[in-house]
Each structure stands twice: as C-alpha cells, then as structure tokens.
C-alpha cells in the first residue's frame, strides 16, 4: 500500500524517475544559494531575476523552437544582462539596486511575454512560464546536474568572502579592498540556477524550490551550513512529495511541488524551533541562575 503510493510511480515510470532526479539536482544547487539569498535579504531580487530570464528564453525559442540549449543560453544571457545592468546602474547612479533591478526586469518580462505570444502559441507560453518537469529529457537532466555541480564547487570556493560580505561588508572592503567581485559571482550563480530551474518548473516558479525551503529552514537551523543542508533536504522532499501528489491526483507537477514547499514553509513559520509563531506565543521558561 505504502509502496504503491510512495515508491511504485518512480519504479514504474521513467519520466517520474527523471523528474525526481531533476528535483534532487535542483535542490542540491538551490538549497545553499537560496540560503544565501535569504541571509542577504535578496529574496525579491531573486524573484525579479527569475522573470528577467523570460525574454532570453523566448528569443531562443524563436530561433530554434523548443530547444533546450538555445532557450537556456538565451535565458542565461538575458538574466546576466539584467543582473549586471542593475548592478552597474546602482553603483554609478543614485538609484538603489532593488529599484534598478525592478525597472529592468519589468521591461524584460514584458518583452518576453510579447515575443512568445506574437510568435508562438499559448501552449508554448505556458510551457515557458510553468515548465515541464514530467518531460525532462536526458539533455535537460545533464544540464541541471552540471549546474548543480558547478554551483556547489563555486560556492565552496567563494564561501568565506560570501559569508563575510553578508555579515560585515565594511570589514571585507577594508581588508581585501572590495566585495563587488564576490557579489557578482554570486549573482551569476543565482541566474544559472534559475535557468536550471526554469527547464523543470518554468520561469515563474523556478525560484520557489530555491526560496521557500531556505526561508523555512530559517525557523529550524542556526548556522549557515545547517541552513544550507536543511533547505536542500526540504527542497528535495518537497519535490518528492509534490511529484507524488501530481501523479496520484492528476495535478500539474510544477505547482504541486511549489505548493508542497509552501506548505513546509507555512508549517515552519508556525511550528519552527527558532523565532516561530509557536516560540513567540508559547515560550519556554527563561533561565534562572
């Protein structure tokens, strides 16, 4: 019974196995990156960036149809362009980075929807916006897995400056003469992981598997490494549970996965061991010496 509900779909169907592996790879890269997005208060910037990918993917689609590689490269170029432009504008003008990013991503998103809707069918638009995790190809799996590997290795390399830049940016500037380079490397990682996620979950929900588990982990874990490990675990479990929901109740897979992650997030807000609603309103007695 339990086997039928939880295991059998993955044993019986190749597309379910592929989807599960894609979720695993996305969780490996997205967990730590989402953790840093939350710690750097960049959640909404991540959201903006995920929308900015759309026109690039759309142009890729125009050139070669539903091709994994052209759409990914297009999305990558568009995402990086918006991230760098926003970063540069905020450093040379008075506009703050969040405002300049919002400006660019709105232009980018409108352009993307325009391209897809004038040149393709609505089915194509849905495909780009919401992804197709149940029809992940071998190529897409290799791409997603490669991006996960690249992300983890790069994060390991820039871990120290990244942590210092979150915790005490002035110290990093004074001791190493700059934090901008680490910031941009991190932005590149965010964009690359969003491109990986959009293959499976679409541009609108790619961020979900990165952001929701990381935000949920904040209510349980108290160190950077444990936050990253927990958000990876939660992301994978959300993917697993979401796929089963989608299979057993015949629901669209992307929203099922993200809603599962959302459920974990809400439960963590309410029940987490750190600064959650529960600890706020039902505190344990404080220490008496």
């Amino acid at each position, binding site marked *: 019974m339990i086997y039928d509900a939880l295991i059998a779909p993955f044993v019986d169907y190749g597309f379910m196995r592929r989807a599960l592996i894609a979720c695993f790879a996305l969780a490996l890269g997205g967990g730590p990156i989402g953790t840093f997005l939350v710690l750097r208060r960049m959640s909404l910037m991540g959201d903006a960036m995920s929308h900015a990918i759309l026109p690039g993917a759309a142009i890729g689609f125009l050139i070669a149809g539903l091709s994994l590689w052209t759409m990914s490269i297009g999305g990558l170029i568009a995402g990086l362009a918006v991230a760098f432009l926003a970063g540069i504008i905020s450093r040379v003008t008075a506009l703050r980075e969040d405002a300049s990013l919002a400006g660019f991503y709105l232009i980018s998103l409108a352009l993307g929807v325009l391209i897809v809707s004038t040149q393709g069918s609505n089915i194509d638009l849905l495909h780009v916006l919401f992804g197709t995790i149940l029809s992940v190809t071998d190529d897409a799996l290799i791409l997603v897995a490669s991006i996960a590997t690249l992300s983890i290795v790069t994060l390991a390399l820039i871990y120290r400056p990244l942590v210092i830049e979150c915790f*005490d*940016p*002035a110290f990093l500037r004074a001791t190493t003469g700059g934090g901008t380079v680490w910031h941009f490397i991190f932005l590149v990682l965010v964009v690359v992981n969003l491109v990986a996620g959009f293959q499976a979950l679409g541009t609108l929900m790619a961020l979900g598997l990165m952001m929701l588990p990381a935000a949920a982990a904040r209510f349980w874990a108290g*160190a*950077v490494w444990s936050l990253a490990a927990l958000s990876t675990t939660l992301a994978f479990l959300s993917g697993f549970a979401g796929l089963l929901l989608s299979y057993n109740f015949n629901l669209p897979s992307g929203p099922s996965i993200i809603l599962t992650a959302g459920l974990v997030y809400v439960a963590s807000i309410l029940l987490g061991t750190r600064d959650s609603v529960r600890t706020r309103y039902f505190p344990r007695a404080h220490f008496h010496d």
Partner: protein
Amino acid sequence: MKPVPPLSVADLTVAYDRVPAVHHLTGSFAPGSLTAIIGPNGAGKSTLLKAIAGLVPLSEGRIDGANGNIAYLPQLAEIDRSFPITVIDAVSLGLWREVGLFRAITGEHVKRARAALTAVGLGGFEGRQVGALSAGQLQRALFARLMLQDAGLILLDEPFAAVDERTSADLMQLVEGWHREGRTVIAVLHDLERVRESFPETLLMAREPVAWGATANVLTPENLRRARYVSDAWGDAA
C-alpha cells in the same frame, strides 16, 4: 608583527561632491606612536581614517606608509547582527590575511582566537551567536578581531562611543598594550579627559589641521577655540 613604517600624509585633501572634508593636511605619525584625533563634528576625522585605510579616493596629496598592514575599526560597524555566526567565527575573520580564501584555520589559529577572546573579557563566549551579544560585548569581540589581525597600524573610529565606562576602560588597556608592543595606533575620540590621560600625541583638526603634536601642547583653550571657529567658518561657506 611586521616592522611598522612611518605613516605620513602630504598636502592631503579628500572631498565629497567637491566639498573638502579634509583640507591640505600635512604631517606624520611616528612608528609606534599613539595618537588621538579630535575636533568638532564634520571636522574630517573619520574621513582621514578612511583615507588612510584606503576606503575613499584622495582628491589631492599623498599618503605614504599605509600599505596592507592595517586594521581598521569603523565608527558604525555595518554588521548584520541577525546573521547566524558564532562569536569565535566572527572573531576569526581577523585571520583573513593569514588564511585567505582556502587555507585551513589550524589549531594554532583557534588557540589565538580563544586567547584574544579571553583578553577582551569574552572567555567562554566562543559558541554564542553574535546576535546575542550586547553592544559592549560586540565592541569587545571586534577588538578581539583587531588583535587577530596583528596589524602594525591600527585605526579606531570612536571606539568607545557606544560602550559603558567599564568596557571603555578595559578596551583602553588593550590599546595601551598595542602601543607598548610598538604598533602605531590612531584613534578618533571625543572624550578630552581620556585623551589627556592616555594619549601622548594629539591631532586637533577642523578640516585643516589646527594643532598636531604632544597632547599637552595641542589641548590648549586657545587651540580648542580656534578649532570651533575654523569649523564654523567652513560651515558658513559650505
């Protein structure tokens, strides 16, 4: 600690939006000297420290002898106190020049970090979260980090501004210790009593240097009145 070169500034001007904050400053800090920088608000004291630390571009003039071997404590630390990091990890950031991106933090390093924490009176706080420290305890932790940086030139911008009397007395002892070890220490201060008591040299500035030398010769009523006057005159012009 590496030997400390003399630190000299020559005709230094630093301007924000063309309004000079430090204006034609010339002079030098002897190796191993302990100098207080005092002056009214807006006199360019913090800007001078930032210029020495290499954090603001110079509009004119030169700074010599300020390369690399510097530890700088800003006035308002931009520290994110909600960041999940333990006290010993935060203090170990002071080892950056030794360990950089990849080198391991050895047992020897950990021992030094613990010793620094004990020296600032935070022994036993290693595993606490930084967010749980009080303002005074955080300032002590930042002093421990300065100790690990092991720099020949130490710049302190109002190090005692937000801490109580006992903490500032403890921290002042550390500063005097650094002075005895032959490090050059420059501190921006407002407490003239403390300057008279503990700092052999003083630079009194109001954008331009008003007086620079032995503290007793600098802190005269006449000089202090002039500093106020110069500052007010600039305020009217700008």
